[in-house]
């Protein structure tokens, strides 16, 4: 039986853009565009099997080998730190991980900085590199409210347009790391299906470099 290459795509607008790149690279799966409730889509001729996954779960699928390759945001990769190959920066889904604080906040280096974030590992690594002592407050949503109601001094979060920050009188104080979508591969899977993975990577890289 021919072994299929399993591809985990992030659900949502980003995933649709990523699929378009696969298609343009010569690796289509037309059934994925049909309006139905199917979860898995195959192109037997090319030996490809696509499935949609929650964006934050894509690295788990790839690290565990049920997906040979997948696309995930750099924010998720930095936070979860999966043991995978990161083969390509797709140059889409661009935003930045930043430190934001109330407009009138003055940082006192003599005090422990209270940091609210969904991205505890990224925040810890960022402040550790600066030698700054922090108190991480791990939240799972509505991060912006934390400094407004006094739960934290600053937040570390993804900033796209900055509109939400401005409307809540918060401002970016520092950029932690730029974020974009990355093509990742399972290390073991790459050993046995590397030729097809390399052809897909090259096909998508040509589009990234052409942008």
């Amino acid at each position: 039986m021919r072994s299929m290459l399993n591809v985990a795509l992030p659900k949502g607008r980003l995933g649709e853009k990523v699929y378009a790149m696969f298609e343009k690279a010569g690796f289509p799966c037309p059934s994925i565009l049909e309006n139905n409730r199917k979860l898995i889509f195959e192109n037997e001729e090319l030996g490809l099997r696509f499935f949609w996954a929650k964006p934050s779960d894509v690295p788990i699928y790839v690290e565990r080998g049920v997906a040979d390759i997948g696309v995930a945001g750099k924010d998720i990769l930095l936070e979860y730190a999966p043991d995978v190959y990161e083969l390509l920066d797709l140059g889409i889904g661009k935003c930045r991980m930043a430190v934001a604080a109330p407009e009138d906040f003055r940082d006192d280096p003599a005090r422990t900085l209270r940091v609210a974030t969904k991205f505890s590992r990224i925040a810890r690594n960022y402040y550790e590199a600066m030698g700054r002592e922090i108190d991480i407050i791990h939240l799972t949503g509505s991060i912006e409210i934390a400094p407004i109601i006094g739960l934290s001094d600053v937040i570390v979060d993804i900033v796209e347009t900055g509109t939400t920050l401005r409307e809540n009188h918060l401002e970016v104080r520092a950029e932690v790391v730029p974020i974009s979508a990355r093509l990742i591969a399972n290390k073991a899977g790459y050993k046995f299906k590397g030729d097809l993975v390399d052809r897909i990577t090259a096909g998508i890289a040509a589009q990234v470099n052409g942008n």
Partner: protein
Amino acid sequence: MSYDKSVLCGNESAAFRLRGLYRRFGYTQYKMNKFEEYDLYVRNKDFLISDHVITFTDTNGRLLALKPDVTLSIIKNGKDTPGAVQKVYYHENVYRISDRTGAFQEIMQVGLECIGAVDDYCVLEVLSLAARSLTAISDRAVLDISHLGLLSAVLDSLLVPSATRAALLAAIGEKNLHELTALCAAADVTAQKTALLRELCTLQGAPDAVMPRLVALLTGTVPAEMLASFSRLMMALVTAGLGHIVRVDFSVVGDMGYYNGIVFKGFVEGVPTGVLSGGQYDKLMQKMGRSSSAIGFAVYLDLLERLSAEPRSYDGDALVLYGAEDDPAVLAAALEQLTADGTTVLAARTLPAGLRFRRCYRLNGKEGTLDEIDA
């Protein structure tokens, strides 16, 4: 006494095959205590896969640990004898935190260590045994081999700060070309050196296909003898008939504080992570007060559990139901007859919940026969 090999799980039969392989090459079994002084692991915790250790206080007040690693104990308990080589294999359980579940796990591990006056033949032998270990597990296997001495020499030539050096090494480990390029640009690495690093990051394949290019790429940047030695070793593996398993791949990176030369990782199809890991660890030997060299590897047998082809459809071949009134001797005689050809049988008064059998019988106590019935 002969035994039915089908009773062994995938990882158990692999363990027996590997032990036989290592014995054939003169490696003797190293047995050790389950416990070790906790202090040994505190002093070398960076070498451990996980620095969490299960500890307890012995009756004499000493703080002991359930061993999370075997190599450290072998080094600690050995001594250097000029010109001599100690070749041992082990088959032990270790206790460490799973990076997936975050909980402690008992992990069955088989491996070998070659310690002492390690020469080029010893390195070749260990690499050959690593490759043969993989083929003993699966006919679809790959052994990736890298050289930290060569990688280190390339990174030294860049003259970049230690943080950048560590980040570059991590990027090579991820085959992350975009990050590698960005780091080089940020550290003002020349275009020529950036191109060299990018090619080193992507160069991979069978030794006979890759080595000529690698030698051309690294000549002038790394010590000539180190490169020549690596090249001879890789080609010797091809000569030994292992060229179809062995691949040169510099994405295998280990802790440069412990490993110094060859490092390698083995993969088999169907297991999502490396099942074998090893390398030369002279620096660890030095840290532990030993002056000789060492190379070894471990095979993570727990990862092979799911490798067996098919999940079992049945829990046994036959179920024999009997009643309270039946004579035990008659039942025993009927079972003896049924199991004579290797059939697996469970005798029970009622159908056990959750178990499945190919055939089901009811004991005819008067005749001493078994009547087949629907399960």
